[in-house]
């Protein structure tokens, strides 16, 4: 398989087939937390894309050039969390400067990207799958795009549900989770699309 088509397969797999939110159920917290408004969701998507792509490349570098040579694999989680936390702090300051409204809109969920299990999950899976530098960057980016895709789609659906006379028992998280479940079922349609 040529390099380009391999990259394509990795992207497709990370975005659609093995979507982190809908098939691996990682990153559910921001998925439910910041999907109330499309604008906020788009902001969050870019933030996560930034963090995830950089985190997966940085963690690959750390893994390859610090942890393995020094035989410190048991420090993997701490190192990765450190990387992610730094990146999140960085983007938090940046968003606060660039868009105070988005900063307010994201609220607590912005620093919580640190504990977004999808980010750590991507970093860990990357080293587990023994990806190369390029593929891990691509994988991180693809996973982030997949996260962004479903987050934005979901925010659109939730905005539409805003004015609906949803039965009291299902208002709020209940109907959101049902919708997410339905999206997850629909994404099952992509299963088997690429064999990785």
């Amino acid at each position, binding site marked *: 398989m040529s390099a380009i088509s391999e990259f394509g397969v990795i992207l497709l797999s990370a975005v659609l087939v093995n979507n982190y939110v809908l098939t691996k159920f990682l990153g559910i917290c921001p998925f439910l937390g910041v999907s109330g408004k499309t604008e906020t969701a788009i902001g969050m998507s870019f933030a996560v894309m930034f963090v995830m792509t950089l985190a997966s490349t940085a963690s690959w570098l750390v893994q390859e050039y610090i942890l393995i040579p020094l035989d410190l694999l048991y420090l993997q989680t*701490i190192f990765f969390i*450190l990387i992610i936390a730094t990146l999140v*702090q*960085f983007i938090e300051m*940046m968003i*606060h400067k660039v868009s*105070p*409204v988005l900063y307010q809109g994201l609220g607590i969920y912005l620093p919580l990207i640190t504990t977004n299990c999808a980010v750590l999950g991507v970093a860990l899976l990357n080293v587990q799958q023994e990806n190369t530098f390029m593929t891990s960057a691509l994988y991180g980016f693809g996973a982030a795009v997949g996260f962004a895709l479903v987050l934005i789609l979901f925010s659109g659906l939730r905005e539409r549900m805003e004015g609906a006379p949803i039965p009291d028992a299902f208002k709020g998280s209940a109907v959101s989770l049902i919708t997410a479940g339905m999206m997850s079922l629909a994404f099952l349609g992509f299963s088997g699309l690429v064999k990785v």
Partner: protein
Amino acid sequence: MEQLLYATLSLGAFALIAGIVLAIASKVFHIEGDPLSDKIDALLPQTQCGQCGFPGCRPYANAIASGEVDVNHCVPGGERTMLSIADLMGVEPKALEEEESVPVVAFVREDECIGCTLCIKACPVDAIIGAPKQYHTVIADHCTGCVLCLEPCPVDCIDMIQKPELLEHWSWPLPDTQRAQLGAERRESHHD
């Protein structure tokens, strides 16, 4: 032992690098002032009435921006102001502290006015004119209905009267149909 040294050193070094990066970033992205409170201030009705417990609209805006107070203390702004601030801040709307009232303006019963100028001093928007020992009059177009002039008046000659409804300002109410009521219910549910 050597292993432990490597671990400590590498982690320490890495943390140091991260710290330096963040320190530089915080310099680069340093923010002057608070753009958020400007935005909130623009949403407030500027009655300067002090019913929120702050000495005017700007201080209240600053307090909201810093997260010190809830968004539901502005009485004259009513529900719409509360909802738009809550929307801006990305917080859950809260019920208003007090019920909204009809818009009013102050009116001085001129035959009773003794011309003490106390109300003129109290008015936050300079909407009362008059000189010492002369009748005072409220400029109805500028009065915000803040009622701050009632208290200082020694002879209680100021009334709050309902703002006259103008034909040009009339607007269609929501249709009195099924879903309009649902919408109203939904808005009411913010109150509980």
